[in-house]
């Protein structure tokens, strides 16, 4: 995988819209037991009595949409509407209960910043651990290590244990690792609000450079103004169904109209 700086120098030409993510009538149901069954005994007894009642909860119902290559696509909706479930279905974490998901590119999901960091390990060690969790190899991580340190502005602290980091330093390092490589598809789940203003500007510049390099970005956020500025299209999800897909302005206006 090329590094950010390498790709910025390349010039990518855009052509006609080409699908990179396709959802065809996707439904996802979680089976929620009505009562928690935690022991074998309970389980065995109830299984015999046929008393295991599972309530099906449909987190997504019959969702179809297409994201094109190079697009910045936003997802909005109230809490529990199914946005995160949708990201999980796309990034291979959950298999859809019904329907089909097809992705034509390597997905680099943004792990919740710093999830998987170990407090006792140094920043350096955590960079490699976190990179490995995201599916990168040793050489892929070595090639971007210096850039990660520079971007996260942690030159002095990179060999100190992470438990000594401030929350801002923690988030900066997490963001730097997760975006060190230019992915084909980048998934952002409500995380662009890390660090101080200066660092946020840096994050935005990086996102823009990704866009120029042809990365498709799929983002979930409640920061509607930010989404309006960044996205090409937005989908509004409500109770597991797509309410509206289209121009950011229109969709956000409709969403606001409903929720005021």
């Amino acid at each position, binding site marked *: 995988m090329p590094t950010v700086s390498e790709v910025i120098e390349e010039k*990518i030409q855009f052509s006609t819209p*080409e699908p990179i993510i396709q959802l065809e009538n996707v439904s996802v149901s*979680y*089976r929620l037991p009505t009562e928690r069954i*935690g*022991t*074998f005994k309970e*389980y065995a007894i109830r299984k015999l009595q046929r008393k295991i009642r599972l309530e099906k909860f449909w987190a997504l119902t019959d969702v179809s949409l297409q994201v094109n*290559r190079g697009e910045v696509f936003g997802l909005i909706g109230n809490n529990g509407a199914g946005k995160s479930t949708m990201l*999980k*279905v796309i*990034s*291979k*974490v*959950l*298999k*859809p209960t019904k*329907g*089909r*998901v*097809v*992705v*034509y*590119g*390597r*997905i680099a*999901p943004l*792990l*919740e910043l710093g*999830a*998987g960091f*170990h407090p*006792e*390990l140094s920043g350096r*060690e955590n960079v*490699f*651990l976190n990179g*490995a*969790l*995201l*599916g*990168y*190899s*040793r050489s892929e991580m070595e090639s971007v290590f210096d850039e990660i340190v520079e971007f996260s502005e942690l030159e002095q602290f990179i060999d100190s244990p992470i438990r000594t980091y401030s929350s801002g330093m923690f988030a900066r390092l997490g963001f730097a690792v997760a975006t060190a490589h230019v992915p*084909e598809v980048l998934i952002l*789940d409500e995380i662009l609000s890390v660090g101080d203003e200066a660092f946020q500007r840096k994050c935005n510049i990086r996102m823009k450079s990704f866009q120029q*390099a*042809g990365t498709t970005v799929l983002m979930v956020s409640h920061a509607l103004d930010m989404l309006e500025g960044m996205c090409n299209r937005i989908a509004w999800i409500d109770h597991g169904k797509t309410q509206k897909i289209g121009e950011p302005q229109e969709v956000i206006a409709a969403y606001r109209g409903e929720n005021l």
Partner: protein
Amino acid sequence: MASTSKPVYDSASYRVSAISELKELGKYRYLLGQLIRRDILTRYKRSVLGVAWTMLNPLGTMLILTFVFSNFFKSNVPHYPVYILSGLLVWNFFSQGTNAAISGLVWGGSLLKRIYIPSSVFGVSAIGTALVNLVLSLVPLVIVMLVDGAPFFLSMLFLPVSILLLTAFTLGFGLFISSLAVFFPDVAEMYQVLLTAWMYLTPIIYPESLISARWLPVYKINPMYWMVKMFRLPVFEGRIPTWQEFLPAFAWAIGMLVVGWIYFTSKTEEYAYRV
């Protein structure tokens, strides 16, 4: 970025199988190494003696057990400390490895809900960590043998085979029990009790000669009986196992590994929903 006409991921044809999980694990081998490294580095990171505890721990347990039990068994077991330690290493590897597989999958579960990682990586790395500890704890075994004046046998060269069988069995069992623990959280607790009982049913602190002939066939159902034997014969009795002794251990190791792997991977798609 080259456009790809062939999908990278298609949920319609995506199915986790025993084979596909093995391939994914191969792709994530760097993560495997990183997880093992993390577990070894962090376990004793803030203690003064650090990794030396890996060796001091079984040594301490051995000393206590020797002190407590030597009066009982002294007459029929020469070099009792070596006898105990050689069995204890096997048992510690098994109990630590399987417990780490359970906690590893529970820890990894919080990640499995957010990003794609082949779920077997947590169990395999848990056993990998235990394996490193086992090899390290061969050092105190050698020290105890020297101090106690126990003879060294050429048959000890058989130990890599013993370790391989033990690892295969522990990995299979660890995957199986950790998978079960995802669906029934009580399993993790029950397992601690089971482990204690299991340890006393395996001739680790008492000599095999203490088991009455009537009960010996029952003892031989226990796979750990065979795993301990694979270790004790070359270290303690100075001979490599006969075929009659080797085959049960081999069958348990391969059988458990295959069953554990197939069971674990058959449940893989459900973990993100459950853990």
